[in-house]
């Protein structure tokens, strides 16, 4: 009886110990896991946009873009224009800078949306959609956004895509030609100016053109005429120009904007890709001198392409920076008093504007939500969401793990003695039976891990590449701490057991087996020591 008790006791100790060990390792793995999550969150961020984008009608997009554009246009005051003419520089005029950033953001967004599609056919569809958006913008007389969209579509990263162009219907190409004619810089934007002047009522001018006019007038006309008289003509000319722009702010567009959509667009337009990165992606989509191979992979590897195409060597620092920037943009918009918190209400608004609104925040908190929580939420949500975009085909097989293993999907422990979970034969991902069908990560067949120090424990299917994640090498100090803690627990519990047994044996009925007991306990201690050494040897 006692023996059985003791055995169970020791087994439970060992369990505790295993837990301790795995706890530390899990933390380590969590860390690397997070890093890789960031990679995916970063890439899936793009898809998150496209996901919703598919459901949006061109007129909706046009209306919301116009809403944003008008808002930003209205912020520019008379004084800002004056300042711009004087300094010829954006440094001290944040509202103007933001307006330009919005314009550039839209062009980049257009390019990225087209380039994010894996096949020429799909890219042509997005291209066509944007042409329809452009038509709508033209009807609304929002010339600034029209310029941004058409400029994006005409950008060399898009116009060089021959395969895509071949899939675009001819009438769409015709419309694009009409648009480029309208916006042509030829004869100093003559076509645009005519259309612009004809229109009475709501219109958003191509701000760049008018800023250029202001600069040109300022440069061409001298400040003073003969006899040191102030050149009134010049002042008059500048005033007329600026005033015209200011007057336009009085006429709001007739549209109803969906707040959530506006939030989504605002975040989507907060792009941070450089021209080079977009260009690289363009090359990845349709390489320069290869016409023969069809640019249609069997499985659309958007995620993988994003990582390799945009940033060939994604290092965790830049990636976390990118995610951080995304969160920053949330705070930029919603942290009204700058205390680093976003209200629950605002947060729900943000969350609702993304397609992953079904994802519930882990911590049910009242009131304010801080930066870390939002970052975690976005990472998790976009990761889960991203699975909707593409087929995440893993090659899962039931597996018996010889060592404690955690689910890579939900981070939970894989319980059981045999057949604890499933392991992907291609990428080495481990997960629960239930999680198998909801894995939020793409199977990365191609990128095999090389230095798999923290790869999942050797399982019944050795020889398969380890899990494709950022790998952290354990330093010797980590091992020491780990060893120290695990042995500390062992000794502590051994001592406790010894003490209890001693107490029991002296007080109760086991006087006779006392010596036996002590011998048994000793052997147990030796066993525990061996166990420690074993554990140590595995992980070192």
């Amino acid at each position: 009886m006692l023996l059985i008790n003791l055995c169970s006791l020791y087994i439970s100790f060992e369990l505790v110990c295993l837990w301790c060990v795995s706890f530390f390792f899990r933390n380590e793995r969590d860390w690397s896991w997070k890093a890789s999550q960031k990679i995916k969150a970063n890439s899936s961020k793009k898809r998150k946009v496209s996901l919703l984008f598919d459901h949006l009608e061109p007129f909706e997009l046009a209306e919301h873009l116009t809403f944003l554009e008008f808002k930003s246009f209205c912020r520019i005051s008379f004084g800002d224009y004056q300042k711009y003419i004087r300094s010829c520089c954006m440094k001290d005029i944040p509202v103007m800078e933001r307006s330009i950033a919005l314009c550039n953001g839209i062009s980049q967004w257009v390019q990225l949306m087209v380039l994010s599609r894996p096949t020429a056919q799909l890219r042509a569809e997005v291209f066509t959609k944007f042409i329809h958006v452009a038509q709508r913008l033209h009807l609304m007389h929002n010339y600034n956004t029209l310029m941004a969209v058409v400029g994006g579509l005409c950008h060399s990263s898009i116009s060089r895509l021959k395969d895509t162009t071949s899939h675009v219907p001819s009438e769409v190409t015709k419309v694009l030609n009409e648009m480029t004619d309208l916006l042509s810089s030829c004869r100093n934007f003559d076509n645009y100016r005519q259309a612009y002047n004809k229109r009475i009522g709501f219109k958003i001018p191509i701000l760049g053109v008018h800023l250029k006019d202001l600069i040109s007038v300022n440069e061409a006309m001298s400040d003073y005429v003969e006899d040191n008289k102030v050149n009134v003509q010049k002042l008059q000319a500048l005033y007329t120009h600026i005033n015209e722009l200011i007057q336009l702010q009085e006429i709001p567009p007739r549209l109803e904007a969906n707040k959530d959509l506006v939030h989504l667009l605002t975040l989507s337009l907060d792009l941070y890709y450089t021209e080079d990165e977009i260009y690289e992606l363009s090359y990845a989509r349709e390489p320069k001198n290869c016409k023969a191979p069809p640019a249609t992979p069997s499985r659309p590897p958007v995620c993988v392409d994003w990582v390799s195409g945009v940033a060939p060597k994604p290092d965790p620092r830049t990636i976390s920076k990118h995610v951080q920037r995304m969160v920053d943009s949330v705070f930029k918009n919603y942290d009204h008093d700058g205390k680093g918190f976003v209200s629950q209400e605002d947060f729900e608004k943000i969350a609702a504007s993304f397609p992953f609104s079904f994802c519930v925040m882990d911590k049910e908190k009242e009131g304010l939500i801080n930066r870390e929580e939002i970052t975690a939420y976005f990472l998790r949500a976009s990761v889960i969401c991203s699975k909707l975009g593409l087929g995440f085909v893993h090659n899962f097989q039931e597996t018996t793990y010889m060592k404690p293993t955690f689910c890579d999907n939900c981070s939970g422990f894989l319980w059981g003695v045999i057949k604890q979970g499933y392991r992907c034969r291609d990428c080495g991902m481990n997960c629960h039976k239930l999680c198998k069908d909801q894995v939020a990560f793409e199977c990365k067949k191609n990128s095999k891990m090389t230095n798999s120090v923290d790869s999942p424990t050797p399982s019944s299917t050795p020889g398969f590449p380890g899990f494709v994640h950022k790998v952290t090498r354990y330093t010797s100090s980590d091992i020491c701490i780990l060893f120290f803690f695990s042995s500390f627990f062992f000794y502590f519990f051994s001592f406790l057991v010894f003490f209890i047994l001693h107490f029991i044996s002296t007080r109760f009925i086991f006087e006779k087996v006392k010596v036996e007991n002590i011998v048994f306990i000793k052997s147990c201690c030796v066993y525990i020591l061996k166990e420690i050494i074993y554990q140590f040897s595995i992980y070192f």
Partner: protein
Amino acid sequence: MGSDDSYNFVFKVVLIGESGVGKSNLLSRFTKNEFTHDSRTTIGVEFSTRTVQLDNFTIKAQIWDTAGLERYRAITSAYYRGAVGALLVYDISKHLTYESAERWLKELYDHADPHIVVMLVGNKKDLESLRTVPTEEAKDFAEKNGLMYMETSALDSTNVEAAFNEVLTAIHTKVASREVTRGSISAVTLSSLVGPSSEAKEEQKGCCQRS
């Protein structure tokens, strides 16, 4: 035809470089005589042109100034279209503006004709005491990239005429030697206007109607 106003070639030349390096000043220096001061009529009409005489040819230089437009990515592709010459301007007293020259160059080659004639221009030569970009350094850079090089001052007009004229001459030489052939973007401008007889047509057509 045959009158003083007629011309044999229209060359589109673009001014690029960081904002604040004095592109607009350079332009206004060069085209002052042809710039109508009444802004209401100027704007909307092609402006910033100047006709120069090279050898026996009359060349109409159509100079495009970004004047702040360089910040708008969407406009750049339209802006470079059909350009046969470019002046890449930096400020000799601001090293940062020089450092970005490489980026500008890349962008230019991305969007414009590969045969484009480019001149690296160090502006604000009058600020010699504040110089941070050594002439030699810029010259080396220009040589390595096959660019022409000159230092100018829009303030006191030093080398402004010379810079533009040199670029126009280089373009003209290229066209004359048929280096730029029909079919490339700029060729429409360049080769369709060999005889003065087609000038009227060319005037209507412009150089940038489409590519």
